[in-house]
């Protein structure tokens, strides 16, 4: 039997921030799961058009942007770990730009759908499920971007961001999660749903 002092010294536990962010992701996944399932259930159930195959175009460029932003954020995190601040800023800004590009093309897509194809959330089941699922994802992108921009701003203002490495790491996990969700949304909406 080890004595009390060594027990105390060797006592190791998981980091609470890590656990917290992981379960945040779990709970968000459950939320998305219901919207995804609803989308799948309602595929082909709309009594009136427009139907997905008529109006949806596969968002190749923006998807590539979003997915590659997972890489850039990883590079940024890596740079910060090695204290390469300039490089961190570079990759971090790239991530933000890629995220913005994704958001803008989603906006363009919606614009086209609403004004040219006359598909709104109330048009049919396709509209309802499409805007809610893609919108839910986009709102997560927005939240992510807000935090990314916040980090960039304080970094540019000279705040020693290295001290907050844990938080930066959590933010990048969240961003990976948003990307992973996009893979699912993309498959469901643009592959299966068309």
């Amino acid at each position: 039997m080890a004595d009390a002092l060594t027990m105390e010294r060797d006592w190791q536990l998981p980091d609470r921030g890590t656990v917290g962010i992981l379960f945040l992701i779990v709970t968000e996944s459950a939320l998305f799961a219901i919207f995804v399932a609803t989308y799948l259930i309602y595929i082909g159930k709309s009594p009136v058009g427009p139907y997905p195959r008529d109006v949806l175009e596969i968002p190749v460029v923006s998807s590539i942007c979003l997915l590659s932003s997972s890489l850039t954020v990883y590079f940024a995190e890596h740079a910060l770990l090695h204290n390469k601040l300039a490089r961190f800023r570079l990759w971090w800004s790239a991530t933000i730009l890629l995220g913005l590009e994704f958001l803008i093309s989603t906006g363009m897509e919606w614009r086209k759908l609403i004004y040219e194809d006359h598909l709104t959330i109330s048009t049919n089941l396709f509209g309802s499920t499409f805007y809610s699922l893609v919108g839910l994802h986009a709102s997560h992108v927005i939240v992510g971007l807000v935090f990314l921009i916040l980090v960039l701003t304080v970094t540019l203002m000279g705040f020693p961001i290295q001290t907050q490495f844990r938080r930066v790491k959590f933010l990048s996990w969240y961003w990976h999660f948003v990307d992973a969700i996009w893979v699912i949304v993309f498959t469901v909406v643009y592959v299966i749903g068309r």
Partner: protein
Amino acid sequence: MATVDYPLDRPPVKDTEFSFSQALYSWVATVDHKRLGLMYIVSALLFFVVAGIMAAVIRLQLMFPENDLVGPATYNRLFTMHGTTMVFLVGMPMVAGFSNYLVPLMIGARDMAFPRLNAFGFWIFLFGGLLLYYSYIGGGGLQGAGSAPDVGWFAYAPLSEGAFSRGSATDYWALGVMVAGIGSIASAINVIATALCMRCPGMSLSRMPVFVWVMLIDSWLIVVALPPLTAGQIMLMLDRHLHANFFDTQAGGSAVLWQHIFWIFGHPEVYILIFPAFAILSEVIPVFSRKPLFGRPAMVGAVVAIGFISLGVWAHHMFAVGMTSWSNSFFAASTMFVGIPTGIKIFNWTATMYGGKLRLDTPLLFCCGFLLQFLVAGLTGIMLGVAPFDWQLHDTYFVVAHFHFTLLLGLVFGLFAGIYYWYPKAFGRMYNEKLGKLHFWLFCIGANLTFIPLHFAGMLGMPRRIYTYPAGRGWEGWNMVSTVGVFFQAAGILFFLWTMVRSAFVGEPAGDDPWDGWTLEWATSSPPPEYNFEKLPVVRSSRPLWDLKHPHDPDWKFE
């Protein structure tokens, strides 16, 4: 990383005189898990009294056939608000309250993992509750229809859609519950992080008190099961305000989809609600029997099993929607499987008492009541799980009787056991044992008198949610007896409230460890100081205080 984030020898805080406004401020601004825990429990009790009075009005209305104490609209609001309040504003904050107060103390931590998130969780829950009740004022909306929501606690679409529920009442239902749910999720993530990351040295997962284990799994269940409800409510709000078509049957939407989404949440929810009672019993019964919990690993395993199985049984609430015979059989089967781990729990608690020296004070009395009554509740649950039998019983008073046996004669009994058991710890004073026993007997008799007869009314064909019923269908007698029972319950509750308030001021000083307990919360003073432990404890077994008290026969030799 290491738990020892705090200086080990902080001087004890001196109790100084506070002015009222300072005291108020110190409660409102607190991030102390014990204060937040008490605030959760006290607000839950307040909501319990409110919803209980609503229940009393419901019962008075149903006392006689053709009674016209309240009209149909009022009645429908009463049961909707009663059910919603009991589930979301009594049951859920009790989970948060008990785990907040006790988890850090039991694992030898100085606070929760995220104290500020904790405070946020409480206030957002309270805000959600008040938002729900604001519907009595603002629910009419611009159309001026209705006051409180009247769609039932599961708000089946399309009844809850804009076309059939005018006004804003249903919006308050959806928003209030959604907001309170966010509070619950915040608190659940906090409990998980606390239990996993804040344990004192030596407290390995296998030595963690069963209470903490159950709360950990309960929190996990909240994290995975609550978002579906939020998702459904978002869709409902999109339907109501942006005219989306999710549940709009005219536009091809499905009314059954709402039921699936709701019960994917709703069924795990009932286990979320009962787990605190399981957790409490697993602490009270051993101490009051003077024996360790029988089959501890099995007890934890059973809760894990219940948690997992409960995610796959939801459609047993939907046997009458016309599913295929395969789905019906599948959900009947999965439903009944829950009985096995639950049985293990009942048997192991009984085995814990077997051969012990039972101290039949109020906490254990409530536990015994729980055991017998929850047995009845579980067995009527099995009857409902037999799908062909459920085709008859579904949406009758038999179901109402079943779930009050689980929730009132089960959960609430368990909560009372816990409240009496930890009262001396929280207030440093002993409750009045005589009043406690009186409360128990009145409440036990009253609750059984209220809900046993309702099984029979249900089997005679009495549907639930009817504001009145004609004479001559064989329901009068059962309803009369049932209503009489409520008076006993109310009297019991009055004694309970009385002893709670009074003993906090004039009760006998309880000392740190009145029950001769075994878990760490009894190792600190009563009430515990803000930092919980002057020196972080070091633990070698699942009963650290037993080891201290019995140095010649410590538990760690056997584990």
